[in-house]
């Protein structure tokens, strides 16, 4: 994992309202007051200053503003963040700067401003082009707004657009999902993320699901949707380069790939997660998560002893190995045996001979002559069952 780059993730916890299936670190802020906004950005920048040292000398490869809803920030705030990150780290060639945006009308007007601030990639949380699906998901926007927002993004000059679609939403029929796919393809983004709705414990959806009120599509239905998606997107020139992500050639997400390749990421903001580079004390790196509590996070501003030390997870070799495999196997490229061997002293077979044989035998895993591994079509459907062999 010799890597001299860094990705920066900035978490913006505010959302217009909290969706009933969401379990991110978010706070409902119908209107983000300028004071609140400035206070948070100040805290982010002071955290950046404090923590940059552990990443000193690294070159910036990507900056990702996620949330929450980062598009609730004013372009000036976004500009401040981008500028300071650039001042902190030298760029490694062109830097991917992504901003997650919700297709609301306010955000739409800000798109040119974001562009000017240095954002070069927009990930639009469209989810669906069906009003009824959006409503059932408890989303704030409607399909018409999504269309306008996408058009506005193009107009503002964004030539890297990603679009989030959800599948297996409550009451969603295969045909409805197919229409979503058609419209997405017709619009022609460079990148599509496709997420099956997952029911996270503690959310209102979990409660409704437990009561049997969610009317989620059954397994057969979900499988049909997945199959349709892969088929339709492939026909339109999108490759499934990761389990949930599709892109036209050359438009794979630079930042997100860092996670699957276990490259260092500095995470700033409430609940943000960082992957510190390996050090003498932690030869396989450290993962740490900031507090998920906004008040506490703001409270820690400017203090030497900060909130990010919570839950620091210093990797041992075995845990790191397991993650290396299951993260890499999520990608179409799969697990690079040589790179794995460099880090862990022996190729995957050195650790999981019997498991690999079994999984290959069952048609879930494919092994290249050099020992590289990737999931088969069937393995992609049963990926969690496969990953269990390695953690």
């Amino acid at each position: 994992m010799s890597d001299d780059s860094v990705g920066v993730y900035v978490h913006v916890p505010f959302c217009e309202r909290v969706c009933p299936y969401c379990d991110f670190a978010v706070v409902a802020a119908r209107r983000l007051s300028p004071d609140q906004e400035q206070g948070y950005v100040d805290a982010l920048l002071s955290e950046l200053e404090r923590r940059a040292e552990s990443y000193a000398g690294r070159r910036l490869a990507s900056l990702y503003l996620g949330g929450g809803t980062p598009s609730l920030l004013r372009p000036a705030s976004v500009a401040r963040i981008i500028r300071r990150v650039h001042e902190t780290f030298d760029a490694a060639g062109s830097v991917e700067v992504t901003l997650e945006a919700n297709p609301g009308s306010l955000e739409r007007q800000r798109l040119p401003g974001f562009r000017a601030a240095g954002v070069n990639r927009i990930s639009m949380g469209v989810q669906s082009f069906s009003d009824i699906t959006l409503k059932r998901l408890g989303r704030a926007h409607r399909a018409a707004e999504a269309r306008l927002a996408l058009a506005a993004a193009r107009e503002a000059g964004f030539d890297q657009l990603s679009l989030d679609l959800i599948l297996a939403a409550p009451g969603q029929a295969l045909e409805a999902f197919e229409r979503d796919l058609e419209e997405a393809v017709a619009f022609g983004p460079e990148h599509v993320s496709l997420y099956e709705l997952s029911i996270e414990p503690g959310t209102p959806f979990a409660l409704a699901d437990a009561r049997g009120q969610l009317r989620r599509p059954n397994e057969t239905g979900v499988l049909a949707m997945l199959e349709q998606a892969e088929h339709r997107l492939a026909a339109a020139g999108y490759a499934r380069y990761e389990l949930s992500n599709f892109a036209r050639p050359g438009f794979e997400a630079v930042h997100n790939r860092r996670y699957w390749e276990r490259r260092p990421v500095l995470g700033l903001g409430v609940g943000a997660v960082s992957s510190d580079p390996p050090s003498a004390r932690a030869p396989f790196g450290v993962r740490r998560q900031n507090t998920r509590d906004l008040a506490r996070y703001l409270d820690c501003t400017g203090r030497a002893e900060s909130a990010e030390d919570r839950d620091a997870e210093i990797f041992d070799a075995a845990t790191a190995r397991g993650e290396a495999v299951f993260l890499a196997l999520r990608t179409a490229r799969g697990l690079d045996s040589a790179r794995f061997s460099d880090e862990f002293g022996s190729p995957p077979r050195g650790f999981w001979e019997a498991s690999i044989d079994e999984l290959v035998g069952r048609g879930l895993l494919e092994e290249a002559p050099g020992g590289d591994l990737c999931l088969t079509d069937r393995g992609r459907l049963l990926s969690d069952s496969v990953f269990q062999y390695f953690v």
Partner: protein
Amino acid sequence: MTDVQRIRNFCIIAHIDHGKSTLADRLLDATQALSKRERRAQFLDKMDLERERGITIKAQTVRLRHRARDGEEYILNLIDTPGHVDFSYEVSRALQACEGALLVIDAVQGIEAQTLANAYLAIDAGLEIIPVINKIDLPTADPDKVAQEIEDVIGLDSADALQVSAKEGKGIEALLQAIIDKIPPPAGDLSAPSRGLIFDSWFDPYVGVVMLGRIFDGKLEVGDSIRMMETDIERDIQTLHVIDPHPRKVSSLAAGEVGMIVAGIKTLTEVRIGDTITHAKNGAAEPLPGFVAVKPMVFSGLYPVEAEDYEDLKTALQKLQLNDASLVYEPETSAALGFGFRCGFLGFLHSEIVQERLEREYDLNLISTAPTVRYRVISQDGESFEIESPAALPDASAIKRIEEPMILATIHVPPEYVGPVLGLCQERRGTQRDMAHHGSRVQVRYELPLSEVVFDFHDKIKSVTRGYGSFDYDLLDYRQAPLVKLDVLVNGDPIDALSLIVHKDAAFHRGTELVRKLKEFIPRQMFEVALQAAIGSKVIARTTVKALRKNVTAKCYGGDISRKRKLLEKQKAGKKRMKRVGNVEIPQEAFLAALKLGDS
């Protein structure tokens, strides 16, 4: 050293739940044996399992001091015993260490099956019995009626019966006085060659085997060289203790006393419950009578989930056997489960307790197969042998006939519940022997196949009689029955550990139910799993566990990775508790699916 005349050794016996352990609490209180801080309900139920289930599993010994009305201080050795039939061996051993027994009878329930069984055991052992009518505080208590039953049913003089409330501490002083007045002091001969009966033991990681003994003759002192008469092992006594109520070192134990003996024994097989301790030099010529060996009634296989735990299981069984003399076991091999042990138990509850103790006290992860009884097989060439495992049954063509153990069940029940009890017995292939009225209760006797009662018969009796019925049994004989072996095939491979021996008429139904139940237990796998029930080569029922078609986590970025990994680890740990047979992961509970039939 205490004058033998001022020692009283007694045990508390009763039907389950009649209040033995609670009465023991009151005796501990009355003799100030515990500090305030130490007091808790059923103090002598020390195992977590006992406290969780609210029953006594192990007999416990404790030594109390009591100043009686004559102004003298007496030593009382009390043994609290379990009431459940599966632990009756604990009772029969305790009886031999005592001169008297408190026969506790619930003033509401009256005499029940185990009251009678234990009373007879005590009479046979020549003990002085003091009937104690307990729970007189309850509004529905009817002590006079119970006193009458004591006379009519057991034949004891009800004039001797005491009335107490163990809960409220009523009648305890009188009981203590009766213990001193009525129970004879031990009769041992202090000058005779020493003899001590080992009636319990356990393994202590620091000192090795600890023996609990009752000294009948002579005296043991720390440093003495002793010999175990049956195992013929010689050792030096390292320490002696009395338990009052915690182990306390003493320098000697003399005739009439009860205490712990530590003699540096680390080899588990060197100690046998029922053996006699004597001095290595000038020892006794004859050992004490010891105990009648117990006959296990039900058998099941115990296997480690992880094959490498086999040796640990073996050691654990040895250690547990020290503390549970009614457990028997021998090595067994299963094609499906590998190396394990066929264990014999006194009943189904006993088998459950043994498995739980092994898992908890020895940190093992075990699979138990469905319990079975011991069948007798007479082969075509006239040979007769017994089997304790369905897998051991030869091919049907080689068998002339199979015989199964029969019991005589004695059921005590109030008259209004006789109907449902008879119905239950009929359903279980029973034949009525007779019926008699005893006081306000009816005693029904039925001949039944043991296999029909080992598992849930007792619970069923309880439920059809709203808790008022109770049941005890004795082994009768073996009788021929049309029995067949029901095999289970998983993806075409027979799983020996799932085989059952069933009555021919029930085979189809059981087979269908069994595969249906197994389907509930076996989680979906990455491929389809076919489940079949077969008799010989004939498949009588089949079903499939459909293949898992999708198991994907959608998002996996920075914030989720640790959480997703932990989820994967958790799922993997869940799988580790399953046994892999061929390619199929089978959860532990599935091997007991045969017991869950009918309760869907």
